[in-house]
């Protein structure tokens, strides 16, 4: 079953969800709960997939490196030093479809997705991606 959904491109789908996720409205209570429900659904998908025999292939997919709040890292990744994150994200984007990088960059610009909340990992990842895409 896991193989079927993997072949159908579920990870590519999750990557596209990741890219537009920050732009989804959470201004109203209903919107916020729907956004959280979407995140929970994506996390559930990843949890199920992580139990499949194809775990190594799954872990190497860009979405698993980029969407850190959705994809829990398998054992082994947790021992990596923090300063590899820049490199890992760069590698992930280079593996992703070009249209994904373009969409991500466009939405970062249009939505000013950097804010200035120094405790928000999402803002840090946005800045990493901006610098990565200058290469």
């Amino acid at each position, binding site marked *: 079953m896991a193989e079927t959904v993997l072949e159908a491109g579920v990870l590519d789908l999750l990557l596209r969800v990741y890219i*537009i996720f*920050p*732009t*989804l*409205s*959470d*201004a109203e209570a209903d919107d916020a709960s729907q956004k959280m429900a979407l995140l929970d659904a994506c996390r559930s998908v990843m949890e199920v997939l992580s139990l499949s025999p194809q775990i190594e292939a799954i872990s190497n997919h860009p979405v698993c490196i980029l969407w850190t709040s959705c994809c829990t890292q398998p054992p082994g990744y947790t021992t990596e030093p923090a*300063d590899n994150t*820049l*490199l890992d994200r*760069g*590698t992930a*984007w*280079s593996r992703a479809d*070009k249209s994904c*990088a*373009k*969409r991500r*960059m*466009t*939405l*970062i*610009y*249009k*939505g*000013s*997705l*950097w*804010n*200035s909340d*120094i405790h928000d990992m999402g*803002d*840090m990842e*946005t*800045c*990493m991606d*901006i*610098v*990565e*895409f*200058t*290469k």
Partner: protein
Amino acid sequence: MIWGTWRHAWISWNLLSEALDSLLFENPLIRFNLRSQLYDQEIVELAFLSTLKFIVLSGSSARHLMNVVTLGSHQDTVRVFSGVIRLWLECVSIQTHSAVRATQYSDSISSPTFEGISSGTALPVNEDPRFYACEKAAFLSKIVNVDKYIYNIIKFATDTAEQNTAIRWGMVEAGCLALVLTAFVNDDFKLSSLTDAVEKEGRKRRSKPGRRETPDADISFLTPIPSTTINAEASRLSILIRNAKFRATWEGQRFNTRRALSLSLVNNLLWNEDVAHEHVVTHALFKKILEA
């Protein structure tokens, strides 16, 4: 038999692909060189526009960006600041060519299009090939010759230069001292040698046939601003700035604010003895400008 041959070829191809992937993943040199060709010019240009937008809106508050640049390599520092400064010079070019009246504040700052939509509806992504050109023109026209944004970009550079010597080397190499010159642009000091070159490069990029289809197209906008050009303009400014009429362009505290911020940037960039020694002529010129 034919089926067996094809199956064998397919398996061999998959094995070869996996081996190549592994090699690419493990070899940073190959990965870097390939990656530099992986992003289309439009993505790269949009990344620089975003960087400039972040900096002019946030100034010293752009801590995440500062931290990311600090974590990067010397090459990253030079590339990021070179690109941002070239964009900034395009903005200055608009100022000098259209004689935009200086303002302390911009009314357009409250415009949602300008600030970005922080958390709202999923934004449609414009696939129009003129998207970047339109966005850049709109953004630069809003920030041109506004004191707050000039101050922010200098403050950002000043605080980033505080991080470590490696960053300072990279920033000086990228031409960050040009930011000081841009703070004193007026009718008599137009920074023509810098702005004309940047404008010419921009026209050349826009006129290249099929540029959108070329992933590794013209990257001249990534090259650092030459220090010889900066020094030549600094030499001119060091004379002009002594003239009271020149300084009167910026009434009230505006001139002193520019000078104070610029002095902090120069001091932070050239603070380290090694950096200052390497750029002794530049250091002397900027001291002459800012201590006038």
